[in-house]
């Protein structure tokens, strides 16, 4: 498991994205929807494995995911975290990106465990 995405919630995703691209030199990478947000922009940071997700702030604070942990095998890690007593908000579920499940860290922050799957490469 490794941290791959850091979500940032904002009312104006374009302004927020420009801040990171213009001031910090990061690049816009894609707009794939990882957090089931209505709109989001993925920004590539200077660290090759870490991306920012700029997502529209819908006001539902309790739903906001604070960190996205990437895994090669969601079911394995879901099982091992559950066995270790970590609270999961939901069972692993499928999305166009792959398989994911949301869990809570000890401080009550919501985190997403996600296994991204390249379905297109299978055909």
């Amino acid at each position: 498991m490794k941290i791959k995405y850091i979500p940032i919630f904002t009312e104006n995703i374009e302004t927020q994205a420009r801040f990171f691209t213009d001031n910090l030199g990061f690049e816009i990478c894609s707009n794939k929807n990882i957090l089931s947000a209505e709109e989001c922009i993925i920004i590539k940071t200077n660290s090759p494995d870490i991306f920012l997700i700029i997502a529209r702030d819908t006001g539902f604070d309790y739903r906001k995911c604070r960190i996205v942990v990437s895994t090669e095998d969601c079911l394995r890690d879901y099982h091992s975290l559950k066995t270790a007593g970590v609270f999961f908000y939901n069972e692993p579920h499928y999305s166009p990106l792959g398989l994911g499940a949301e869990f809570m860290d000890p401080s009550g922050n919501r985190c997403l465990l996600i296994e991204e799957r390249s379905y297109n490469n299978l055909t």
Partner: protein
Amino acid sequence: MEYLRTLRNNNVIYSGTRDTKYNQQTTSDFSIRFVFSGNERYNIGKRQLSIHTDSFLILNKGTQYTSTVESAIPVQSFGISFDDKFLQDFKNSWQLKDDTLLANYKRPLTSRYEHEFDETIYPFKGDLFFNVNHLKYHLDRGLQDELLINEYLHHCLINYYQIFNEEIFQKAQRLNFLNRSTKIEILRRLNLAREYLYTNYNQNISLDELAEYACLSVTHLLRTFRQAFNVTPHQFLMQIRLQRAKDLLKNTDYPVNEIVNMVGFDCPSSFIRLFRDRFTTTPLKFRQDF
């Protein structure tokens, strides 16, 4: 890697390399059969169903079959049998949830309808592909945790029903027949045609032969096949051939010309053109890049 794991809840997982013909067997439970190399042919009554690495087969409880290994390379078989209670628990729990795949069936897939159609070949794709590969990876390395194994099996069922929904139910919905029993009967015959193409993809198949196997007239076959699968039988056959050629390019050292013949193309140039159209790369470049 050879093993036969019987879990405490009587789910069974088999993995092994086969290179012989097997005598008649009977499935004791609902089973999913895969191959990870080569291909294996199942004979169920008069039907012949051949599975490759891009497809899988469902066998219902009590089905009598024989299986034959057909490829030059040893066949790596992998099978999962689900205990009745596990399967029933799964269906009960998932059919009760509003947001699940099974609930999307609304009313149409009664157990009779489901039982009638599930025993066929399906494309090995999507989440089932990932979950079965993960499961096999862990079992090959000696995974003992049955809770985790059953978690994978549970998800394999979710994934299988998603594919069943796409391949059977959604295709039945596309058929332009008002009468429900006509729709079911046509879909059954189209499935025979599809199985025939999956199994004999490398043969020179005529439309007459295919129509006869499916018990439909040629015009009826062409019209309904297109309605259900969105492609003609010929286009479907080309898709299978190209996919299998891609697998051979990826997993073997056979020269391209030999692969062309193995998958049933007559002419290398038309194979290369079709391959490029479908995968936006040439066969040689694909092999080099892989």
